[in-house]
């Protein structure tokens, strides 16, 4: 079974980074990665239906246009069950509290610890497969 993950970040090189970091999982066909460079784009592609469906969303907080927190709010209204992991450069308590209040599953700080992220993704995969 292939699980879709949507990564929302305004940095285009994020795509290369994630594809290379998750190359083993991608090669094995466990994961499919979708990318969006803004909150608006992400909402659009989610509503148009991604294949395979995104079961996990990773979003940056500081982005031009719609901020990561605004995007999170919209997403919570439209797809309340999709887990969302917020990524931020500012590991301050204020951002963490707000993100968790709105309904983020987890908050990780940059630089992203991919070992930890992979474990997180694995646990989601395990849950989904079990379900």
């Amino acid at each position: 079974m292939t699980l879709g993950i949507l990564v929302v970040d305004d940095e285009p090189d994020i795509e290369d980074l994630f594809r290379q970091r998750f190359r083993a999982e991608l090669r094995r066909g466990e994961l499919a990665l979708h990318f969006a460079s803004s909150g608006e784009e992400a909402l659009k592609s989610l509503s148009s239906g991604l294949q395979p469906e995104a079961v996990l969303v990773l979003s940056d907080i500081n982005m031009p246009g719609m901020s990561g927190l605004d995007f999170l709010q919209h997403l919570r209204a439209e797809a309340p069950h999709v887990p969302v992991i917020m990524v931020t450069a500012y590991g301050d308590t204020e951002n963490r509290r707000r993100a968790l209040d709105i309904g983020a599953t987890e908050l990780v700080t940059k630089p992203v610890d991919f070992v930890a992220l992979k474990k997180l993704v694995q646990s989601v995969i395990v849950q989904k497969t079990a379900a």
Partner: protein
Amino acid sequence: MDDFTNLRVSPPQSVQEALDLGHVYHDQLVAAMPGLLVHRGDTILHCSATLARLLGYETTESVQALPSAMALVPEDDQHTEKDVYARCLKGLIRSQVRRIKRHRADGSIQWFDQLMESVDWGGQPAVMEMLTLMRPLAANAELPHQEQLLQAAIDAMPNGVLMLDSDLNVEGANSEFYRLWDYPVGMFPPGTAVGLILTYNHSRGDYGDVPCEETVAALCNRFRVKGIYNSERRVPNGRTLDIRNAPRADGGYVITHHDITDRKRIEDELRQAKERAEAILKELRETQRQLIVQEKMAALGQLTAGIAHELKNPLNFVNNFAELSGELLDELLELLEPLNDHLDDATRVDVNDLAGSLQGNLRKIADHGRRADNIVKSMLAHSRGGGGEWQTTDLNGLVEEALTLSYHAFRAQDRSFNATLERRLDAAVGEVKLVPQDISRVLVNLFTNSFYAVRKRQLICGDSTYKPTLMITTETRESYVSVRIRDNGIGMSPAVIEKLFTPFFTTKPTGEGTGLGLSLSYDIVVHQHRGRFDVSSIENEHAEFTITLPRSVTAMSLGERRKT
């Protein structure tokens, strides 16, 4: 009352009555004498009718109603008279006549010749002043009418006047001169050598502990110089005089004494006011300089934090891709492994060589990326908001903890290092409200710098008797506490001290220091805690860092000021 000789007196019937009569006679006699005033401290005990009349008062009661005998003394004579009265009460009596001034009831001045005695009044000593209207001196009484007029004229002058002939003998002087110098009346009649007057001055200690003959001779010579003899002098009555010498056509001299006490006082007041104003100006300039430095530091800190934020993301990519490239290269080499057999030896050597270089380069990129990452993290500490919490903290405990931590950390890197740690922690410092995390960071920073400085000096000088020493002092002063850290390390030049708190300034070799430690410490102490950061040092002798913190401060988080 005046003519008491004609009073009818009944014969006394008892010893007591006889004694009373004796008292009456005594009182009557005292009343008829030239002005008589008895007083002690602020109380006027007795005033004779004659004196009341001489002073222009209606009754003796109105004199006795005055707040004190000093009320009669003109302002410029208060100093001497107080002194003279005090001496008299102690029984130190001067037998000579003094020439003095007193206020009359209408405020005008009356000259008197005064005799003074200590008397027993009601079982306690009191001052008895006998005042006679100034009489012409016996020597002057013989003068022809014209000269008597001249004497009256100079007596009326407000300045002291002394006239000397060409041989420096006294020709005459006015009452003011006698009063200013407090000379007994009649002691220096015309013909007296001025040297004798000066010798008298010396004998009563006017010139201090100096040889008599030389001093008198030198002063006599100055009388012969036209213009200024001794421009300023304090005289026994506590006034400052401007003494001038005007030679006369016949070879004599007129020495005038102007009372410049008031002018001097005003000058002194003006000078003091000027000095105060200058001190305040200096303080303002210093404050302004400090403010500019603070602003500069804040702006630099802000810039630093901004740069750090901007660098953080690209740096993450560099580090991530460097790491990934390493992994990818390993995978690539693994894939190509089977092909190695198809290569000739020379090519295989080249391939392995290139692959090795590539791996080496990627390791270097990762190493330097990590280094840059550490710098960025330190830079971000400048703008980190709301990290630490304000807590009432035992400052000595915090100092002790930071010291131990720094010492162990330093020794962990350099096993052969040892230092003497002298603690002078004042228990009175007690608890202070501060952000313990941040202050601890400042202290660790300062201790580590000190260890670095003493270690460096030890390694450079090679002197086995050199003892690396840190002295840590805590003190409390009113609303402030301070921590002073002094080391006997390599110290700093003034040029280094000047740039000490500038971000990225470091004296350590590239890669060893970020140059952000003291800049951040300054931010914490000065901006966050509203304290002071002082540095002093002599190269190759010592360096001393003092942080002063207010006991209570409005809680501020680091970087808060910048958000405005």
